[in-house]
């Protein structure tokens, strides 16, 4: 079986964030990491996924990535 890993390259990141209405919120420091509550910036953004009607964003600290790995295992994101 072939699995796919959805990804966005840095070249397209701004356009994606605009489409998802996240760019301004991130620039204003209003978006926090789902797991560590750290303020998300364009530099530390690691991943994005939907959950219960909202968009969740994860920062790139090792702690957040570990939580995300566990979350993927449990919830099958």
């Amino acid at each position: 079986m072939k699995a796919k890993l959805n990804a966005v390259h840095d070249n397209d990141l701004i356009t994606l964030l605009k489409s998802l209405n996240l760019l301004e919120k991130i620039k204003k420091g209003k978006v926090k990491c789902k797991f560590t509550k750290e303020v998300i910036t364009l530099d530390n953004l690691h991943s994005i996924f939907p959950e219960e009607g909202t968009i969740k964003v994860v920062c790139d600290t090792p702690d957040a990535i570990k939580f995300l790995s566990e979350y993927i295992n449990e919830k099958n994101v």
Partner: protein
Amino acid sequence: MKKMFNKVDFNFYFDFNFSLWTISTLTFVSLFIYYLLNPEKFEKLIALISKFLKYISIKFDKTYVKYDLQGKINDYLRKVSNRTKHLDIKKINVEWISVSEQNEKQFVQNGELILRLKKGDHQNENIVKASMAFISYAFLKKAKSYIAKYQRESMDLFACYDLLKEEKSEILDQFVQDFMKDKMDNKKISDFFEKYSDIDDVGIFYPVLVQELTFLGEKVFAKKREAQNIHKEVTELVNFLYSYANRKLREDIVNDFSGTYCKFGIRIIGRSIVINRNGERVYKNHLKEIAPRNETLYLIGGHEHKEFINKVFINCKDEIGYSKLMDDTFLATIKNKEGEDITVMSYILTVRNNSIKVYHKK
């Protein structure tokens, strides 16, 4: 005598008349066949070419990031799938999402996890983070739904470590610093990790442990299950293989594992003294005896006994009702009679009971 040799005249003529065209065609055809059989190597080649081209145009950066990552993960997956059957995922494709098609409403309703990959200058970081995401998402997916948290965390760490250990030392260092160090403070996780390492040294981490966990995942899928019993059985399985990995040469230990979900036997075939004295007979009789109470048999021996091991199995497979699942040759570090490490070229033949029916997608 001397006179006779003087009269003999040896003349060898070699006529190499290959044109440049023939040589290029042959090289091209050989490369084509090689890359057709090893697509992950082709991905690595694309990555290498794009790595240089990205200095000419930034458009090639995306190609480099994608294929470098994909090639590395698929290389690992190929290694694992050569040693373990029925894996959930055999290949991965890094897909750039179509940015223009995204909108908030649609993403909230049907979206999937999107991983941000940085530019090629940060490729080490990309590799570490994407490897963690991939292993968590795809490696032993079914089994990990049922095993304990510390069991799956230790399994993910070991698999990721194994994936990255052949890469540049900076990549492995970053993984160890960012992800392994903290987790290893958890005694349960570090104990399991060290046991996996010993099990891997003797070459049975993927062909036996991961294989049995794959079977376990298939068996408990869509069935009533007691989580605690599964956690206990996985711990016993790891401990059993750890004892096996640390056995000294010729040491007698229990070599059958009879759990609720995993039932298998490991047998060493090929002590020269037994082969010379009794031939196949003694091994065939033994397999006939142990086959009914097991579901999988792992027949292990020195690489020089590969043919003999196959002959023993082929000559009794119909009688015992087993079929060949896979085989592999590998370098193993085992303990000699004094307990010192020695390296040997080993062979494993995995055979599976025909009566076992499990859910698994082809």
